[in-house]
Protein backbone atom coordinates (compact mmCIF):
# COMPACT_ATOMS: atom_id res chain seq x y z
CA UNK A 1 0.00 0.00 0.00
CA UNK A 2 2.61 2.44 1.05
CA UNK A 3 4.67 1.82 -2.05
CA UNK A 4 1.55 2.16 -4.19
CA UNK A 5 0.54 5.37 -2.51
CA UNK A 6 3.97 6.85 -2.85
CA UNK A 7 3.90 5.77 -6.49
CA UNK A 8 0.59 7.53 -7.00
CA UNK A 9 1.94 10.64 -5.36
CA UNK A 10 5.07 10.59 -7.49
CA UNK A 11 3.02 10.06 -10.63
CA UNK A 12 0.81 13.01 -9.77
CA UNK A 13 3.85 15.07 -8.99
CA UNK A 14 5.47 14.11 -12.27
CA UNK A 15 2.41 15.06 -14.31
CA UNK A 16 2.00 18.28 -12.43
CA UNK A 17 5.60 19.25 -12.96
CA UNK A 18 5.45 18.27 -16.60
CA UNK A 19 2.59 20.69 -17.06
CA UNK A 20 3.04 23.31 -14.35
CA UNK A 21 -0.14 25.13 -15.10
CA UNK A 22 -3.09 26.40 -13.21
CA UNK A 23 -6.40 25.24 -14.38
CA UNK A 24 -9.23 26.96 -12.91
CA UNK A 25 -7.59 30.12 -11.94
CA UNK A 26 -8.76 32.95 -14.10
CA UNK A 27 -6.50 35.94 -14.55
CA UNK A 28 -7.07 39.32 -16.09
CA UNK A 29 -4.54 41.69 -17.52
CA UNK A 30 -4.95 45.11 -19.10
CA UNK A 31 -2.77 47.92 -20.36
CA UNK A 32 -3.45 51.38 -21.67
CA UNK A 33 -2.75 52.47 -25.22
CA UNK A 34 -3.90 55.99 -25.91
CA UNK A 35 -7.55 56.18 -24.95
CA UNK A 36 -8.20 52.46 -25.07
CA UNK A 37 -7.60 49.73 -22.57
CA UNK A 38 -6.38 46.54 -24.17
CA UNK A 39 -7.00 43.60 -21.93
CA UNK A 40 -7.05 39.87 -21.86
CA UNK A 41 -8.43 37.11 -19.67
CA UNK A 42 -6.61 33.83 -19.40
CA UNK A 43 -5.96 30.73 -17.38
CA UNK A 44 -2.27 31.01 -16.57
CA UNK A 45 -0.33 28.55 -18.65
CA UNK A 46 -3.47 27.06 -20.11
CA UNK A 47 -4.66 29.49 -22.73
CA UNK A 48 -7.15 32.26 -23.06
CA UNK A 49 -10.62 32.60 -21.58
CA UNK A 50 -13.04 33.09 -24.44
CA UNK A 51 -16.42 34.71 -24.21
CA UNK A 52 -16.31 35.67 -20.56
CA UNK A 53 -18.04 38.77 -19.26
CA UNK A 54 -15.91 41.85 -18.57
CA UNK A 55 -17.05 44.71 -16.37
CA UNK A 56 -15.17 47.95 -15.99
CA UNK A 57 -15.82 49.75 -12.74
CA UNK A 58 -15.03 53.25 -11.56
CA UNK A 59 -13.45 53.74 -8.12
CA UNK A 60 -16.92 54.52 -6.73
CA UNK A 61 -18.20 51.17 -7.99
CA UNK A 62 -20.29 52.45 -10.85
CA UNK A 63 -20.08 50.53 -14.09
CA UNK A 64 -18.17 52.32 -16.83
CA UNK A 65 -18.44 49.67 -19.50
CA UNK A 66 -19.29 46.03 -20.07
CA UNK A 67 -18.05 43.73 -22.78
CA UNK A 68 -17.05 40.13 -23.37
CA UNK A 69 -13.75 38.64 -24.43
CA UNK A 70 -13.34 37.56 -28.05
CA UNK A 71 -12.12 34.23 -29.39
CA UNK A 72 -8.60 35.05 -28.31
CA UNK A 73 -9.63 36.07 -24.82
CA UNK A 74 -9.01 39.74 -25.54
CA UNK A 75 -11.14 42.82 -25.05
CA UNK A 76 -10.86 46.55 -25.55
CA UNK A 77 -12.53 49.32 -23.64
CA UNK A 78 -12.55 53.01 -24.47
CA UNK A 79 -11.39 55.31 -21.72
CA UNK A 80 -13.60 58.31 -21.14
CA UNK A 81 -12.16 59.68 -17.95
CA UNK A 82 -8.74 59.65 -16.38
CA UNK A 83 -9.63 57.66 -13.30
CA UNK A 84 -8.72 54.23 -11.97
CA UNK A 85 -10.48 51.55 -13.98
CA UNK A 86 -11.15 48.30 -12.17
CA UNK A 87 -11.52 45.45 -14.64
CA UNK A 88 -13.60 42.54 -13.37
CA UNK A 89 -13.71 39.38 -15.44
CA UNK A 90 -16.37 36.84 -14.51
CA UNK A 91 -16.62 33.38 -16.00
CA UNK A 92 -20.06 32.78 -14.48
CA UNK A 93 -18.97 29.47 -12.96
CA UNK A 94 -17.16 30.84 -9.95
CA UNK A 95 -14.16 32.08 -11.87
CA UNK A 96 -13.45 35.69 -11.27
CA UNK A 97 -10.46 37.95 -11.68
CA UNK A 98 -9.71 41.61 -11.20
CA UNK A 99 -7.14 43.96 -12.58
CA UNK A 100 -6.65 47.60 -11.74
CA UNK A 101 -5.67 50.04 -14.47
CA UNK A 102 -4.37 53.16 -12.78
CA UNK A 103 -5.26 56.65 -13.82
CA UNK A 104 -1.57 57.56 -14.07
CA UNK A 105 -1.22 55.35 -17.12
CA UNK A 106 -3.90 57.21 -19.02
CA UNK A 107 -3.34 60.19 -21.28
CA UNK A 108 -3.47 63.49 -19.49
CA UNK A 109 -5.68 64.92 -22.17
CA UNK A 110 -8.64 63.18 -20.58
CA UNK A 111 -10.70 64.80 -17.89
CA UNK A 112 -10.09 63.02 -14.64
CA UNK A 113 -12.28 64.42 -11.92
CA UNK A 114 -14.97 61.97 -10.90
CA UNK A 115 -17.33 64.89 -10.25
CA UNK A 116 -17.58 65.47 -13.99
CA UNK A 117 -20.36 63.62 -15.70
CA UNK A 118 -19.38 60.79 -18.01
CA UNK A 119 -20.11 62.65 -21.22
CA UNK A 120 -17.70 65.45 -20.45
CA UNK A 121 -14.87 64.04 -22.50
CA UNK A 122 -13.22 67.08 -24.06
CA UNK A 123 -10.49 69.00 -22.28
CA UNK A 124 -8.03 68.43 -25.06
CA UNK A 125 -5.63 71.00 -23.75
CA UNK A 126 -2.92 69.12 -22.00
CA UNK A 127 -2.48 71.90 -19.47
CA UNK A 128 -5.94 71.19 -18.06
CA UNK A 129 -4.71 67.98 -16.51
CA UNK A 130 -4.40 68.34 -12.76
CA UNK A 131 -1.44 66.06 -12.15
CA UNK A 132 1.58 65.41 -14.35
CA UNK A 133 3.22 62.40 -12.67
CA UNK A 134 4.09 60.12 -15.63
CA UNK A 135 5.37 62.96 -17.75
CA UNK A 136 7.60 64.18 -14.95
CA UNK A 137 10.59 62.35 -16.37
CA UNK A 138 10.39 64.25 -19.62
CA UNK A 139 9.28 67.44 -17.95
CA UNK A 140 12.11 69.66 -19.20
CA UNK A 141 11.29 68.92 -22.80
CA UNK A 142 7.58 68.75 -22.29
CA UNK A 143 6.98 72.28 -23.42
CA UNK A 144 8.46 71.58 -26.83
CA UNK A 145 6.73 68.24 -27.40
CA UNK A 146 3.39 68.61 -29.09
CA UNK A 147 0.41 66.55 -28.03
CA UNK A 148 0.62 64.43 -31.20
CA UNK A 149 4.22 63.50 -30.60
CA UNK A 150 3.49 62.74 -27.00
CA UNK A 151 0.64 60.50 -28.06
CA UNK A 152 2.85 58.74 -30.57
CA UNK A 153 5.48 58.12 -27.92
CA UNK A 154 2.87 56.84 -25.49
CA UNK A 155 1.55 54.55 -28.18
CA UNK A 156 4.97 53.19 -29.10
CA UNK A 157 5.95 52.64 -25.50
CA UNK A 158 2.64 50.94 -24.75
CA UNK A 159 3.06 48.67 -27.76
CA UNK A 160 6.52 47.56 -26.70
CA UNK A 161 5.99 47.33 -22.98
CA UNK A 162 2.49 45.81 -23.03
CA UNK A 163 3.53 42.24 -23.89
CA UNK A 164 6.38 42.44 -21.43
CA UNK A 165 4.10 43.49 -18.61
CA UNK A 166 1.66 40.78 -19.51
CA UNK A 167 4.44 38.24 -19.43
CA UNK A 168 5.69 39.53 -16.11
CA UNK A 169 2.23 39.34 -14.66
CA UNK A 170 1.82 35.76 -15.80
CA UNK A 171 5.29 34.88 -14.57
CA UNK A 172 4.48 36.09 -11.12
CA UNK A 173 1.59 33.66 -10.91
CA UNK A 174 3.28 30.63 -12.34
CA UNK A 175 3.40 27.73 -9.95
CA UNK A 176 6.91 26.61 -9.36
CA UNK A 177 8.34 23.41 -8.16
CA UNK A 178 9.30 24.97 -4.85
CA UNK A 179 5.66 25.83 -4.22
CA UNK A 180 4.69 22.20 -4.63
CA UNK A 181 7.52 21.00 -2.42
CA UNK A 182 6.71 23.65 0.14
CA UNK A 183 3.12 22.52 0.36
CA UNK A 184 4.09 18.88 0.68
CA UNK A 185 6.54 19.82 3.39
CA UNK A 186 3.76 21.51 5.32
CA UNK A 187 1.62 18.41 5.10
CA UNK A 188 4.46 16.23 6.38
CA UNK A 189 5.02 18.68 9.20
CA UNK A 190 1.36 18.85 10.18
CA UNK A 191 1.16 15.07 10.16
CA UNK A 192 4.17 15.01 12.44
CA UNK A 193 2.54 17.43 14.86
CA UNK A 194 -0.61 15.32 14.84
CA UNK A 195 1.56 12.27 15.60
CA UNK A 196 2.92 14.06 18.62
CA UNK A 197 -0.50 14.87 20.00
CA UNK A 198 -1.86 11.41 19.39
CA UNK A 199 1.18 9.84 21.01
CA UNK A 200 0.81 12.08 24.04
CA UNK A 201 -2.84 11.19 24.36
CA UNK A 202 -1.99 7.50 24.13
CA UNK A 203 0.65 7.83 26.83
CA UNK A 204 -1.79 9.45 29.20
CA UNK A 205 -4.68 7.15 28.49
Amino acid at each position, binding site marked *: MRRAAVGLLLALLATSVAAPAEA*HRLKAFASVDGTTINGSAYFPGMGMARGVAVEVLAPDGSILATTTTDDEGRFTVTIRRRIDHRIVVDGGD*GHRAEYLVRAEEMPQSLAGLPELSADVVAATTASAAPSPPPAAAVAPGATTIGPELEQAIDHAVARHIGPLREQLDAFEDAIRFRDILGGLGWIVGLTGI*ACYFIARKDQRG
Partner: protein
Amino acid sequence: MAHLVDGVLSMPVLAAGAVVAAAAVGYGLRRIGAERLPYVGLMSAAFFVASLVHIPVGPSNVHLILNGLLGVVLGWAAVPAIFTGLLLQAMFFGYGGITVLGVNTLIMGLPAVACWYLFARPMRDGEPFVWGAAAGAGAIVMTCGGVALALALSGREFLPAAQLVCVAHLPVVAVEAMLTGTIAAFLRQVKPEVLSLSLPMLRRAPADA
Protein backbone atom coordinates in the same frame (compact mmCIF):
# COMPACT_ATOMS: atom_id res chain seq x y z
CA MET B 1 -14.69 25.94 -10.84
CA ALA B 2 -14.26 23.59 -8.05
CA HIS B 3 -12.29 26.16 -6.14
CA LEU B 4 -14.50 29.17 -5.74
CA VAL B 5 -12.49 32.36 -5.41
CA ASP B 6 -12.76 35.38 -3.14
CA GLY B 7 -15.38 37.89 -4.09
CA VAL B 8 -17.86 35.61 -5.85
CA LEU B 9 -20.03 34.49 -2.96
CA SER B 10 -22.17 36.61 -0.69
CA MET B 11 -21.32 37.26 2.93
CA PRO B 12 -23.97 35.03 4.57
CA VAL B 13 -22.92 32.07 2.39
CA LEU B 14 -19.27 32.58 3.33
CA ALA B 15 -20.07 32.89 7.03
CA ALA B 16 -22.35 29.86 7.10
CA GLY B 17 -19.79 27.89 5.11
CA ALA B 18 -17.02 28.77 7.55
CA VAL B 19 -19.06 27.75 10.60
CA VAL B 20 -20.28 24.45 9.16
CA ALA B 21 -16.84 23.64 7.78
CA ALA B 22 -15.24 24.30 11.17
CA ALA B 23 -17.66 21.84 12.75
CA ALA B 24 -17.04 19.23 10.03
CA VAL B 25 -13.26 19.62 10.29
CA GLY B 26 -13.46 19.30 14.07
CA TYR B 27 -15.59 16.18 13.81
CA GLY B 28 -13.23 14.72 11.20
CA LEU B 29 -10.18 15.43 13.35
CA ARG B 30 -11.68 13.47 16.23
CA ARG B 31 -12.01 10.47 13.95
CA ILE B 32 -8.30 10.33 13.21
CA GLY B 33 -6.60 7.66 15.25
CA ALA B 34 -2.92 6.81 15.39
CA GLU B 35 -3.26 4.00 12.85
CA ARG B 36 -5.06 6.17 10.33
CA LEU B 37 -2.97 9.30 10.63
CA PRO B 38 -0.33 8.37 8.00
CA TYR B 39 -3.08 7.78 5.45
CA VAL B 40 -4.64 11.12 6.24
CA GLY B 41 -1.34 12.85 5.61
CA LEU B 42 -0.69 10.86 2.46
CA MET B 43 -4.16 11.50 1.07
CA SER B 44 -3.95 15.17 1.92
CA ALA B 45 -0.70 15.34 -0.04
CA ALA B 46 -2.31 13.54 -2.98
CA PHE B 47 -5.23 15.97 -2.90
CA PHE B 48 -2.87 18.93 -2.73
CA VAL B 49 -0.90 17.79 -5.77
CA ALA B 50 -3.88 16.49 -7.78
CA SER B 51 -5.08 20.02 -8.37
CA LEU B 52 -2.05 20.54 -10.58
CA VAL B 53 -3.07 17.82 -13.00
CA HIS B 54 -5.03 19.55 -15.70
CA ILE B 55 -7.44 18.33 -18.26
CA PRO B 56 -8.03 20.91 -21.00
CA VAL B 57 -11.68 21.17 -21.98
CA GLY B 58 -12.66 23.53 -24.73
CA PRO B 59 -12.27 27.13 -23.69
CA SER B 60 -11.76 26.35 -20.04
CA ASN B 61 -9.93 23.60 -18.31
CA VAL B 62 -10.25 21.66 -15.15
CA HIS B 63 -8.14 19.60 -12.80
CA LEU B 64 -8.38 16.46 -10.74
CA ILE B 65 -9.90 16.72 -7.29
CA LEU B 66 -9.68 13.15 -5.93
CA ASN B 67 -12.26 13.78 -3.22
CA GLY B 68 -14.01 10.49 -4.00
CA LEU B 69 -10.80 8.61 -3.29
CA LEU B 70 -10.19 10.56 -0.10
CA GLY B 71 -13.73 9.83 0.99
CA VAL B 72 -13.71 6.07 0.58
CA VAL B 73 -10.30 5.70 2.20
CA LEU B 74 -10.61 8.21 5.03
CA GLY B 75 -14.30 8.68 5.79
CA TRP B 76 -14.92 11.75 7.91
CA ALA B 77 -11.17 12.24 8.23
CA ALA B 78 -11.25 13.30 4.57
CA VAL B 79 -12.68 16.66 5.65
CA PRO B 80 -9.62 17.84 7.62
CA ALA B 81 -7.37 16.35 4.92
CA ILE B 82 -9.18 18.34 2.25
CA PHE B 83 -9.19 21.45 4.43
CA THR B 84 -5.43 21.23 4.84
CA GLY B 85 -4.92 20.70 1.12
CA LEU B 86 -7.15 23.64 0.26
CA LEU B 87 -5.43 25.93 2.74
CA LEU B 88 -2.03 25.13 1.26
CA GLN B 89 -3.33 25.43 -2.31
CA ALA B 90 -4.66 28.87 -1.46
CA MET B 91 -1.37 29.91 0.10
CA PHE B 92 1.05 28.41 -2.43
CA PHE B 93 -0.88 28.39 -5.68
CA GLY B 94 -3.43 31.13 -5.19
CA TYR B 95 -6.27 28.69 -5.84
CA GLY B 96 -9.51 29.54 -4.16
CA GLY B 97 -8.99 31.96 -1.32
CA ILE B 98 -8.96 32.32 2.43
CA THR B 99 -12.47 33.73 2.85
CA VAL B 100 -13.99 30.94 0.74
CA LEU B 101 -11.98 28.25 2.47
CA GLY B 102 -14.96 27.07 4.49
CA VAL B 103 -17.30 26.85 1.53
CA ASN B 104 -14.69 25.09 -0.59
CA THR B 105 -14.00 22.62 2.20
CA LEU B 106 -17.70 21.74 2.30
CA ILE B 107 -18.06 21.63 -1.48
CA MET B 108 -15.30 19.05 -1.73
CA GLY B 109 -15.42 17.45 1.71
CA LEU B 110 -19.11 16.62 2.03
CA PRO B 111 -19.19 14.69 -1.27
CA ALA B 112 -16.19 12.73 0.03
CA VAL B 113 -18.07 11.82 3.19
CA ALA B 114 -21.20 10.97 1.18
CA CYS B 115 -19.14 8.64 -1.00
CA TRP B 116 -17.83 6.97 2.11
CA TYR B 117 -21.35 6.27 3.41
CA LEU B 118 -22.51 5.13 -0.01
CA PHE B 119 -19.59 3.21 -1.44
CA ALA B 120 -17.02 2.24 1.20
CA ARG B 121 -18.85 -0.89 2.34
CA PRO B 122 -19.85 -2.21 -1.09
CA MET B 123 -16.30 -1.51 -2.19
CA ARG B 124 -14.96 -3.86 0.45
CA ASP B 125 -17.60 -6.53 -0.04
CA GLY B 126 -18.32 -6.26 -3.74
CA GLU B 127 -16.47 -5.46 -6.92
CA PRO B 128 -13.95 -2.80 -5.86
CA PHE B 129 -13.35 -1.30 -9.29
CA VAL B 130 -17.03 -0.66 -9.97
CA TRP B 131 -17.74 0.91 -6.58
CA GLY B 132 -14.51 2.82 -6.59
CA ALA B 133 -15.37 4.24 -9.99
CA ALA B 134 -18.83 5.13 -8.70
CA ALA B 135 -17.23 6.98 -5.78
CA GLY B 136 -14.77 8.82 -8.03
CA ALA B 137 -17.48 9.94 -10.42
CA GLY B 138 -20.13 10.56 -7.79
CA ALA B 139 -17.93 12.84 -5.73
CA ILE B 140 -17.21 15.10 -8.70
CA VAL B 141 -20.86 15.32 -9.68
CA MET B 142 -21.80 16.22 -6.11
CA THR B 143 -19.02 18.78 -5.98
CA CYS B 144 -20.31 20.42 -9.16
CA GLY B 145 -23.76 20.54 -7.61
CA GLY B 146 -22.24 22.14 -4.53
CA VAL B 147 -20.50 24.80 -6.60
CA ALA B 148 -23.72 25.62 -8.40
CA LEU B 149 -25.63 25.67 -5.12
CA ALA B 150 -23.13 28.04 -3.51
CA LEU B 151 -23.38 30.33 -6.53
CA ALA B 152 -27.17 30.12 -6.49
CA LEU B 153 -27.32 30.99 -2.78
CA SER B 154 -25.23 34.05 -3.60
CA GLY B 155 -27.84 35.28 -6.01
CA ARG B 156 -26.90 33.66 -9.29
CA GLU B 157 -29.12 31.44 -11.29
CA PHE B 158 -28.68 27.83 -10.34
CA LEU B 159 -29.22 26.03 -13.62
CA PRO B 160 -26.86 27.92 -15.96
CA ALA B 161 -24.07 27.79 -13.40
CA ALA B 162 -24.69 24.12 -12.70
CA GLN B 163 -24.69 23.34 -16.40
CA LEU B 164 -21.51 25.27 -17.00
CA VAL B 165 -19.66 23.61 -14.15
CA CYS B 166 -20.97 20.10 -14.80
CA VAL B 167 -20.25 20.10 -18.52
CA ALA B 168 -16.74 21.36 -17.90
CA HIS B 169 -16.16 18.60 -15.36
CA LEU B 170 -17.38 15.67 -17.45
CA PRO B 171 -13.81 14.70 -18.42
CA VAL B 172 -12.80 14.88 -14.76
CA VAL B 173 -15.71 12.59 -13.89
CA ALA B 174 -14.41 10.05 -16.40
CA VAL B 175 -10.78 10.30 -15.33
CA GLU B 176 -11.54 10.15 -11.62
CA ALA B 177 -13.87 7.19 -12.09
CA MET B 178 -11.08 5.25 -13.77
CA LEU B 179 -8.45 6.39 -11.30
CA THR B 180 -10.46 5.78 -8.14
CA GLY B 181 -11.71 2.44 -9.47
CA THR B 182 -8.19 1.30 -10.29
CA ILE B 183 -6.80 2.40 -6.94
CA ALA B 184 -9.69 0.76 -5.10
CA ALA B 185 -9.16 -2.53 -6.93
CA PHE B 186 -5.45 -2.32 -6.27
CA LEU B 187 -5.90 -1.58 -2.57
CA ARG B 188 -8.37 -4.44 -2.16
CA GLN B 189 -5.80 -6.79 -3.60
CA VAL B 190 -2.66 -5.49 -1.94
CA LYS B 191 -3.74 -3.87 1.28
CA PRO B 192 -7.43 -4.60 1.93
CA GLU B 193 -7.26 -3.43 5.54
CA VAL B 194 -6.87 0.16 4.36
CA LEU B 195 -10.38 0.06 3.00
CA SER B 196 -11.68 -1.38 6.25
CA LEU B 197 -9.94 1.10 8.50
CA SER B 198 -12.84 3.47 8.34
CA LEU B 199 -16.00 1.68 7.42
CA PRO B 200 -19.23 3.47 8.26
CA MET B 201 -21.55 2.00 10.87
CA LEU B 202 -19.08 -0.61 12.00
CA ARG B 203 -20.96 -1.18 15.20
CA ARG B 204 -24.08 -2.25 13.36
CA ALA B 205 -24.43 -6.00 12.87
CA PRO B 206 -23.01 -7.00 9.51
CA ALA B 207 -26.41 -8.08 8.22
CA ASP B 208 -25.55 -7.29 4.64
CA ALA B 209 -22.29 -9.16 4.64
